């Protein structure tokens, strides 16, 4: 692969940009890709760049610990050798072995969308039946160049659902605590190191579209499938929403036609145009007035007429009466006379100041002496007071009369309007004319005002009845108006969705080919190794078509004749095909995952293909840590008989989900078994036997050393590439032993001393025979030599 591999999201974002896709269409694609709600996408600003991952380090699995999950009850750990090599976990179906594979994938992929699609049975049955609690998963990893290990923990609370686990990361070397910050999301898509049983199973379902999707998933193109599905689902719902208003219209019109309210006519009118007048409808729905100047408003006016009640009227009459009595009480006192007399007396008093004790200038009689003056002053005051109270009484009388006449408001014009059959205002109008106070007595008021009050109450009743009859249809109108607006929006959205889907399907083809192309030749090689005696030859594979027509196009030839693709392939061959597509990607040099976890690739493979698989996996295991789960003995027996190095664990499950692991085979054990068998072969000349046994014992020691070197150095933070380089350049057993014991070949001289420390003279003997015996043979007891070698190997691995 020349250029850097790109994730589906990166490719799509770039292509959206390059193709100058309209904003609203691009938003839909992006939202669909990110699993957001599409209906809101059109209005939303999209961030232009996907979240950028850091550069993750090369990681190997060190162990998987599971408890209370799937088939595993009490806590159990599957220990793994970090670094390249092949590990087989064998166990009968239902032994809980797949639970380890699923647990590792679940923990490392986190809240991956792939799990959302899992069958409901799986989602409900994820807790262990016998030990549902506590449920947790721990995956231990070594990361390149970091000392110690990194643990990804997934823990569920007592009542948590599958998707509600707490996921955390804890590394001896420090670093992020959130899985999302590990930078694995993109590599998981591009180089996903997990191949599950169900994915391989989906390949053989026989339905072209299902196979297409299964292959896409194996290629890490789930996002493409999910995005397309999200867009397609939205399109379906937008389509039905956009049609809903039109579909509901006939029912609404039928209801309106039956409704007597004049607003129903207005609503019919608003609906009659090519484009419905939604504003008018909304106003009508809110109880609003019809356009014909309607009677409802007149009735509303009548209903709100307020008339004084009889108490108010009586009070006003009382006031007038009281004022009249006050006026009467002044009894003929004329305020003007009093004032005139007062001013005459005042003028005389004025005159007297100059003409003291002269006779009255008016009548020329009595002398105006002091006594008169005093009397006159008192009279003036008395006269003025009288005049004022007469004025006040008169004013009050006027005010009271005015108030009485004002008590009845002006006759409203609405009383002369046509209020329809239900309310005739004539009587009320006539009554109003008679309501002239004070010509009317307080007693008569009540009788006269009665028709007005009756009309008012009637108007209110009519209005209320109308409102009650209108409300249901008003609700219908409001609902339809909302639906119509939704439909209009959906129609706009639908057009964009169609464009988005069309664009994505076009681009999907390019993305798929971009994914397939770089690995095509490696896939063909893997297929070649796997197919064994199969007469099917694999040419280029393409994913074709879209929507329901999508399928996998295989260019295969059967016995050299071009064949009808999938029809000719057996289940075993289809599984082999899945592997051929999976392996090159998972082992890409750019992948940060040093491991591969494959769940039951052996199913339905015939014996010969199992041999091919054994070779393929061993080949991959030269550079990767390959962990394979398998339900029968075929693969392990193939590995053993073909002398392919591997570590084999047997999983057994007792009652109540108690799962136990037992190591049944590993390269060291196998070398030692062979050495023992060879040592017993008396037919051979002893020199030949000795050399063969020495070679096998050396193999056992080297295998033990390699294991120790890898796990110790990786855990000490030595970069993986450096470890492998050191292993490659260690040409002699002595070098390898030095690396295992001291982590470096510089300590050559101290090796023997250290070996002695480990297990005394027998170990030193074993070591030196293994070194020299291959060339010189071994003198003495071969059986003993094998035993000593076993002792040393055991001491090394301790």
């Amino acid at each position, binding site marked *: 692969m020349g250029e850097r591999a790109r994730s589906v999201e990166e490719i799509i974002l770039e292509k959206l940009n390059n193709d100058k896709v309209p904003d609203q269409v691009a938003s839909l694609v992006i939202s669909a890709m990110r699993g957001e709600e599409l209906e809101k996408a059109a209005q939303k600003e999209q961030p232009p760049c996907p979240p950028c991952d850091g550069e993750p380090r090369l990681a190997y699995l060190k162990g998987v610990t599971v408890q209370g999950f799937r088939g595993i009850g009490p806590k159990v750990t599957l220990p793994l050798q970090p670094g390249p090599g092949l590990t087989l976990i064998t166990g009968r179906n239902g032994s809980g072995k797949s639970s380890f594979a699923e647990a590792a994938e679940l923990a490392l992929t986190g809240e991956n969308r792939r799990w959302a699609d899992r069958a409901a049975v799986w989602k409900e049955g994820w807790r262990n039946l016998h030990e549902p609690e506590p449920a947790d998963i721990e995956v231990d990893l070594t990361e390149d160049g970091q000392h110690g290990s990194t643990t990804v923990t997934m823990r569920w609370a007592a009542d948590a659902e599958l998707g509600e686990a707490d996921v955390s990361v804890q590394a001896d070397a420090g670093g992020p605590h959130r899985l999302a910050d590990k930078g694995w999301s993109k590599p998981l898509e591009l180089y996903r190191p997990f191949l599950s049983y169900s994915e391989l199973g989906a390949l053989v379902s026989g339905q072209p579209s299902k196979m297409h999707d299964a292959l896409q998933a194996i290629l890490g193109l789930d996002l493409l499938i999910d995005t397309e599905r999200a867009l397609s689902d939205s399109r379906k719902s937008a389509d039905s929403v956009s049609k809903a208003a039109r579909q509901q219209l006939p029912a609404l019109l039928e209801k309106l036609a039956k409704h007597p309210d004049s607003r129903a006519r207005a609503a019919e009118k608003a609906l009659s145009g090519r484009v419905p007048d939604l504003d008018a409808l909304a106003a009508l729905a809110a109880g609003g007035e019809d356009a014909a100047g309607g009677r409802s408003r007149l009735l509303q006016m009548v209903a709100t007429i307020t008339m004084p009640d009889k108490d108010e009227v009586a009070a006003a009459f009382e006031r007038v009466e009281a004022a009249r009595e006050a006026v009467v009480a002044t009894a003929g006192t004329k305020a003007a006379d009093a004032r005139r007399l007062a001013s005459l007396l005042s003028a005389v008093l004025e005159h007297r100041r100059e003409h003291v004790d002269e006779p009255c200038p008016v009548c020329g009689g009595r002398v105006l002496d002091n006594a008169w003056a005093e009397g006159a002053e008192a009279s003036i005051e008395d006269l003025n007071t009288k005049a004022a109270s007469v004025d006040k009484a008169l004013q009050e009388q006027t005010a009271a009369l005015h108030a009485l006449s004002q008590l009845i408001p002006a006759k409203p014009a609405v009383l002369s309007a046509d209020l329809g059959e239900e309310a005739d205002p004539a009587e009320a109008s006539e009554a109003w004319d008679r309501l002239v106070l004070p010509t009317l007595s307080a007693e008569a008021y009540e009788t006269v005002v009665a028709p007005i009050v009756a009309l008012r109450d009637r108007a209110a009743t009519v209005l209320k009845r109308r409102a009650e009859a209108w409300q249901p249809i008003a609700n219908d109108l409001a609902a339809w108006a909302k639906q119509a607006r939704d439909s209009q929006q959906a129609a706009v959205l639908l057009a964009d969705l169609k464009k988005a889907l069309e664009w994505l399907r076009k681009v999907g083809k390019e993305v798929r080919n971009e994914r397939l192309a770089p690995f095509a030749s490696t896939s063909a090689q893997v297929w070649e190794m796997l197919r*064994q*005696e*199969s*007469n099917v030859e694999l040419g280029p594979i393409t994913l074709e078509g879209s929507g329901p027509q999508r399928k996998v196009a295989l260019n295969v030839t059967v016995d050299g004749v071009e064949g009808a693709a999938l029809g000719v392939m057996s289940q075993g061959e289809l599984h082999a095909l899945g592997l051929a597509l999976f392996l090159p990607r998972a082992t890409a040099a750019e992948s940060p995952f040093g491991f591969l976890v494959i769940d039951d690739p052996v199913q339905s493979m*015939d*014996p*010969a293909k199992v*041999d091919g698989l054994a*070779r393929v996996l061993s080949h991959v295991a030269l550079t990767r840590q390959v962990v394979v789960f398998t339900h029968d003995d075929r693969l392990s027996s*193939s590995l053993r*008989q*073909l*002398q392919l190095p591997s570590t084999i664990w047997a999983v057994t499950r007792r009652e109540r989900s108690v799962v136990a692991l037992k190591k049944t085979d590993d390269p060291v054990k196998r070398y030692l078994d*062979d050495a023992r*068998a*060879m040592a017993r*072969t008396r*037919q*051979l*000349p002893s020199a*030949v036997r000795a*050399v*063969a046994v020495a*070679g*096998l014992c050396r193999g056992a020691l080297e295998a033990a050393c390699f294991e120790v070197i890898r796990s110790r150095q990786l855990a000490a933070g030595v970069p993986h590439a450096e470890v492998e380089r050191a292993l490659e350049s260690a040409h002699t057993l002595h070098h390898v032993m030095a690396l295992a014991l001291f982590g470096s070949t510089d300590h050559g001289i101290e090796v023997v001393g250290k070996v002695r420390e480990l297990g005394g003279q027998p170990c030193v003997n074993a070591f030196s025979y293994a070194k020299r015996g*291959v*060339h010189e043979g071994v003198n003495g007891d071969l059986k003993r030599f094998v035993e000593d070698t076993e002792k040393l190997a055991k001491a090394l691995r301790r």
Partner: protein
Amino acid sequence: MSGPSYPVPAAGSGAPPVSPEELLDWADRLLTSPVEGLGNLWPRACALVIRLALEQSLDRYWTRVLPEAAECGMRQQLLLLPLYAGSDAAADAGLDAASLAREAWRGLARAAHHHVYELAPTAEELRRWHTAVSRLTVLLAAEPNQVMGSR
């Protein structure tokens, strides 16, 4: 067994053993054309003949290089073979004598015995083993009478 009789080397009978090349010819004929009277037994018969060819081929080689090895079981022979025959380069490609012998033996040992649930080998499997044993025979015949430990 009725039908044509096939040459089988009788141990210690003094008759010269049939060469692996001849046996492979027989097997090839069984694979390509029906043999009257053999009916459905031909795949197992064919497997037996190829297996015999493998044994003869190794036998002939060991007689030349390490006579004692010919007396050993197949496990020992297969363990010894990489010490005597082949090259590292061929071994990496899985095309050295030891790998070819191992792979053919694994299939043939199983096919030549009766297993309750296992069906007779297919023509493709037989052809593959035939090819492997043919290659092995050519390789071993070309090996010098070398001394052990040269690898």
